[in-house]
């Protein structure tokens, strides 16, 4: 029991959990990857305690697995891949440390959720750029650090926007700030007193330290706060929708709309994904029968400065552009008002069953980066693989999201399945495995290489892998941070 005694001494009895049921619950997740029940769950309440914990882990050789969100675990990245690991649950570190309207900056701890943050930001007429209907317990910090795509790519001048600076305890136990915040004292209050709001994420010298914690699945260190750039909340907003019979018909409009930068949100859904999003209000099977095969949703907004003028200009221009590509951009389609869809995509899912699981009980996803013009290739591959394995292609959900001003496109396939059926589970597992390989062969890029994707992706490029290994050797020399992830 030496380990438990050490942890209790460090963090207090209430913050060290070894109840078998609780340990089981932390191991539950959607992935098919090898995983272990954690040895302990610990709940540090400060960055200082996190630092102490990581130093202890280095001394004792104990693997640490950080987790900040609550609710269903979709990807397995926060579940141990090795035995005798300690899960570091940061969901209790959930303070919004600072909100600055002048610079639209906010500093949050790992446990802060979207609902909590947006309620606070709304008081100053701001909002954080969100991802597609996250679970209610989703950590904003984790979502952003893991580069989950935002609905509005137009305010992403940088690939990782709205992420700016972070505080990180690296795997070697060194705690430091990044970006602008690294140039000053390791004391946020002292920096705020000098009107330094952790705006500038780069450097501050020649190394972008924050980039080393992004997409890392907690394998480089533990982030204990992040500064995020908020947006001004729209005073007038409309999510317009255009329908199409095939994906290719949307391509020209999306390219052009991205070129103009007129949209706020912009994303593509197929009918199954759209119907799944609306499952609270409609029967999915009935709805998918009346929905068009594809839609593109485009937001137009007016904010504090002459909102009506901006909204009208954006709305009319987007409608005109769509028309020039043979698309009819409307305030809603077939029982789906744009406002309802906007409400769904921008709010969190507070239901016990996550919306992607609602149809059959569980789901698997395959997502990667590509370019818009190549999405059709992957769509065909997904259908072919599904058909080969007898998976109903009409149940494949598709979500395409431009990122970083349209430099790259997140493409995501969702496959609902019945987890209580061994045959269905085996089929979807085979489907995900086969499609992942097919995607990689076609040039799909697993920028966030969860589970088996790590091997598929990292094996494509030996030099990048070697560089990554060298960096892991510097920042986590004893391999205590979430070992087994990003492994080849």
């Amino acid at each position: 029991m030496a380990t438990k005694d050490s942890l209790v001494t460090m963090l207090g009895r209430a913050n060290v959990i070894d109840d078998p049921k609780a340990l089981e619950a932390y191991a539950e997740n959607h992935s098919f990857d090898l995983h272990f029940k954690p040895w302990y769950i610990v709940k540090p309440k400060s960055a200082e305690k996190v630092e102490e914990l990581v130093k202890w882990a280095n001394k004792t050789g104990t693997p640490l697995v950080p987790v900040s969100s609550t609710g269903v675990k979709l990807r397995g990245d926060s579940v141990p891949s090795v035995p005798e690991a300690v899960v570091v649950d940061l969901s209790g570190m959930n303070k919004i440390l600072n909100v600055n309207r002048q610079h639209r900056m906010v500093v949050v701890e790992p446990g802060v959720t979207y609902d909590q943050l947006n309620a606070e930001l709304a008081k100053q007429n701001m909002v954080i750029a969100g991802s597609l209907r996250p679970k209610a317990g989703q950590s904003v910090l984790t979502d952003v650090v893991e580069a989950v795509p935002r609905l509005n790519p137009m305010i992403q001048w940088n690939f990782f926007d709205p992420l700016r600076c972070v505080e990180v305890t690296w795997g070697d136990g060194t705690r430091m700030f990044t970006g602008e915040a690294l140039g000053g004292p390791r004391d946020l209050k002292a920096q705020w007193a000098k009107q330094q709001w952790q705006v500038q994420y780069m450097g501050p010298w020649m190394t972008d330290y924050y980039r080393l914690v992004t997409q890392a699945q907690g394998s480089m260190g533990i982030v204990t706060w992040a500064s995020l750039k908020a947006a001004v909340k729209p005073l007038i907003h409309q999510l317009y929708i255009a329908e199409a019979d095939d994906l290719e018909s949307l391509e020209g409009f999306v390219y052009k709309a991205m070129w103009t930068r007129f949209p706020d949100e912009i994303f593509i859904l197929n009918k199954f994904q759209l119907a799944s999003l609306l499952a609270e209000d409609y029967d999915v099977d009935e709805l998918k029968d009346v929905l068009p095969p594809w839609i593109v949703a485009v937001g137009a907004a007016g904010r504090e400065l002459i909102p009506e003028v901006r909204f009208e200009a954006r709305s009319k221009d987007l409608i005109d552009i769509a028309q020039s590509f043979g698309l009819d951009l409307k305030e809603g389609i077939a029982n789906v008002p744009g406002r309802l869809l906007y409400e769904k995509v921008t709010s969190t899912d507070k239901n016990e069953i996550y919306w992607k699981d609602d149809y059959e009980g569980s789901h698997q996803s395959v997502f990667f980066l590509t370019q818009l013009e190549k999405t059709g290739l992957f769509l065909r591959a997904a259908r072919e693989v599904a058909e080969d394995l007898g998976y109903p292609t009409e149940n494949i959900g598709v979500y395409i999201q431009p990122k970083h001003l349209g430099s790259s496109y997140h493409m995501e396939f969702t496959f609902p399945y019945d987890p209580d059926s061994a045959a269905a589970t085996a089929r979807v597992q085979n489907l995900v495995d086969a499609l992942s390989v097919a995607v990689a062969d076609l040039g799909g890029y697993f920028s966030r290489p969860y589970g088996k994707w790590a091997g598929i992706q990292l094996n494509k490029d030996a030099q990048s892998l070697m560089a990554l290994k060298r960096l892991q050797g510097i920042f986590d020399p004893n391999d205590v941070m979430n070992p087994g992830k990003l492994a080849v």
Partner: protein
Amino acid sequence: MAMSKDFYRALEDIVGARNVSCDPAVTENYRCITAQSSAHYGPYATRTPKPLAVVLPGSTEEVQQIIKLCNKYKVEFKAASTFWAAMGYIGSDNAIQLDMIRMDQVEIDEKNMIATCEPFAIGGTVSVEAMKRGLNCNIAGVGCSSSTLAGSSGWVGFGPSSIFMGIASENLLGAEWVLPDGEIIRTGTLGSDGEWFCGEGPGPSPRAIFRGWTGTAGTLGVCTKISIRLHPWPGPKWIPVRGTAPAYFADGLDCVRAYTVCYPDWDAYAESFRLFYEADICYLAHRQFNMFGRDIKTAMVEIFTHPEKQFCDLPALMEDPYIKEQNEQMKVDVQIVMAGFSDRDLDYKEKAFDEILRQVGAHKSEYYLQQDIEDFVKLYLLRLGRKNYNYTLCSSYEGNFGLSGNVFVAAPLMEEAAALKRKWEQTHTGVAAVGGDSDMGSVSGIGGGGTTGWEFFVHFDGFDLASIEDSNAHIEETAAWMKEKGLGTDFGRWNADARKPDGYNYSQAEHDSFYEKLPQPAMAEYQWKIREAFNPNHLTGSYYKTLTPKEFRKGKK
């Protein structure tokens, strides 16, 4: 230092005899005159060391071979493309200079708005090729005659367009990099599938070590090709130009509007920036012509826009009642360019702009509403092709103060900073007297706004020792003022820790003495570890900032 004959012969074998030289007539030309390069650490009346040889590689493979050779012979190397500043030059007598002039290709992927650029593809070329396809690129403040790749991989890379187009770091997608040990790394999708559209990951981005707030100033190997994000351009495929040198004017850019804003005070100036950021209406935003100095800027623009006028006309122009009155209104000013992607868009931007000016009590400069002057500004800022103007006043300049970052912190200090410079102008002949305030720079040093990037131009005579020394002493005082105010490192001293006044590299012991007092020294200790991992023979000079980690300093290992 003598160079091995075998080493030289091996260089010839790699690039061919006509692409390598150790002739002093050639190598002498690869010494930087540090008083003339805006080196951000002087100015000094010195030159950087003479290279053992100058090599002109023609491909990534040749660069790799050269670096492998340098590792074998333990010879330092530094690559540069357009040689804007001292950081492109070597810092040791045992070093060769790579001149990347032969690698100059640009390719544009119109649909996906991506340009791939070799080192000697300059900003002007990239923007011209992009504009043919309805696109444009962020041209860094260094100007369109400088390498796009160098700005993206080597240094900072923001400029007038950064508010709309982001800065070089944000636009950098893929990169091909020959590491200091001679291995080649290709970031993101390039390494994975030969595609250029994403440079991040997979997983945590190795790109982190190649490009931070600044690039690595050529210290982490040689970047041989990059891809950058392009941005929309609503104008014609090329910019029609009228006029006689140097008075060139953009013709018929109806979808583009250029204004100069006159503010009642610095508070209004700062508040307007916040509103510009939020309204997202600027295509370009820069305080540009104040670089000549508050007292003379309008007279200088008169000279540049009238080919018959000369610098000897400056005193008379400054006394011209109209110029004088207009100049007075522009004490606190900024240039704003808006581009309309539709008629409605331009109409919205104009109205939003007017509303911002109304809210902060500012107005449009009447002088800059003259058609020729507006067209001059459009061309100047869109192309950023007049970097020679930086030198016209006195032959050289150095940027100091560097009141970057939070505009609400910097703006209230501008008059105090201007008074400090004015004192030197009045008491020392070596610093050009232009009215104190010669602040210029970007309204945004980050895409979409949020930080600024300013500097005060100190105009001086780079061929006059007294002028060099006066300017250096002035910058020394402003650096102390910056420190006292808690404003960070003076821009004129940014590289004071990168190269010694004599032009040579610092030693590790010297770097240790600089960085051990950092508020968070880990930032320099990790860079030491990164250098040990990727540049084990230390062949790239001292622009890379490293602190020997505590455990090694104390002799524990």
